[in-house]
């Protein structure tokens, strides 16, 4: 069973539908026991970093997520929450990946949010989530905060600055883009995660 953590502020149904399309079953939950027993855990994210962290704290899920040993995937804001801290709020993160999330610098002719289909550069093509993915494949981004490229970066994209698109540390993975809204490329990345 795949657990989708329900932070209430996030739009969960598009992630749930994407998992349905892979033929797997899931449960949307805030129950620590269900999350700990799940084969895979997804931390979705649309909304505000501070509100999401508060929601996880109120639910008592912060130590639960930190202690997970199975594959965990943070999506968009969910990815950003894996880091030590984020400039949005500002807020502390889960501290699972060393680094901080910053506001995308304002650059002339580059509107914010960074919204749309951008191309992937593969910083670490050996990442299991990038199996079958090629440099230049496009995925859907929508965000105004970003993780600069660091040792955790497996794939990146360019929008004025170089932006981490896929990050990982041990069993914790994160995508800045929305695999559930990224057509066949996103589907492949989601399936790669679900077969870990």
């Amino acid at each position: 069973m795949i657990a989708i953590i329900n932070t209430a502020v996030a739009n969960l149904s598009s992630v749930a539908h994407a998992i349905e399309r892979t033929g797997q079953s899931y449960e949307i939950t805030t129950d620590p026991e269900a999350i700990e027993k799940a084969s895979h855990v997804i931390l979705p994210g649309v909304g505000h970093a501070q509100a999401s962290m508060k929601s996880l704290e109120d639910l008592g899920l912060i130590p639960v997520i930190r202690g997970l040993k199975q594959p965990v995937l943070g999506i968009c804001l969910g990815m950003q929450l894996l880091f030590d801290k984020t400039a949005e709020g500002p807020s502390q993160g889960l501290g699972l990946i060393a680094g901080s999330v910053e506001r995308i610098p304002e650059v002339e002719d580059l509107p914010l949010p960074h919204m749309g289909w951008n191309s992937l550069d593969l910083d670490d093509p050996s990442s299991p989530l990038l199996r079958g993915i090629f440099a230049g494949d496009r995925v859907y981004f929508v965000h105004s905060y970003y993780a600069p490229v660091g040792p955790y970066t497996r794939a990146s994209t360019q929008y004025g600055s170089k932006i981490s698109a896929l990050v990982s540390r041990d069993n914790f993975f994160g995508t800045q883009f929305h695999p559930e809204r990224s057509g066949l490329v996103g589907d492949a990345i989601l399936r790669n995660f679900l077969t870990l």
Partner: protein
Amino acid sequence: MLAKRIIPCLDVRNGVVVKGVKFKDHVELGGVIELAQRYREAGADELVFYDITASAERRTVATTWIEQVAKVIDIPFCVAGGIRSVEDARRILHSGADKVSINSPAIENPDLIDKLAAEFGNQCVVIGIDSLEQEGDYKIWKYTGSEATAQNAGKRTLDWVREVQERGAGEIVLNCMGADGTKQGYDIRQLQAVREICRVPLVASGGAGQKSDFLEAFQKARVDAGLAAGIFHRGELSIADLKHYLDSMGVIVRL
């Protein structure tokens, strides 16, 4: 590099996709799910569904077809129509839409934009603007879903574009009413004027009749996306052909 987006717009009335010329004489085109799937297959980068009757008739869009679209579609989509409260927006976003687009209710109650941005993040909040050139200026209109209800909203378009950004709009769809349905091309001059002051993604809407119209909007008005309806619905232009043309002309697109 970020790709320019091609967005078919599906005007929905009573669960059926329709298209009119200058907001008159709506013609039925087919079911929402069927058309959504067809455009996803054809290479659309995103879909916009406008429930064109909603604002004027004070209804909210049916969440049933939104849920059905969310199940079958793996590209982003936006829903517009009669969203007048945070709760209306929450229901639509939780049904699986990625963004909500607000038009007339934002004009009636601008605070709604701030509330939606605070609750869901500005990336979910699209402001649709129906704009018409009048007396040498651009003016916004409201309740344009039918000719009987359409009225001048008494604000300058450029003032409204500035205001909605300050309040938390994450994207602006500028529908140039004078060009809409004419197939004579986007209103490049008006789009340029709005682009000058628009720091969020800008979507051109109204008037696309051929491939070069999109090229012009991307190159001359530097819009982020081109939205069109009739030209796609009538099969006069395929999204694949359009994207290959744009690619050959040096525009970055998702092929």
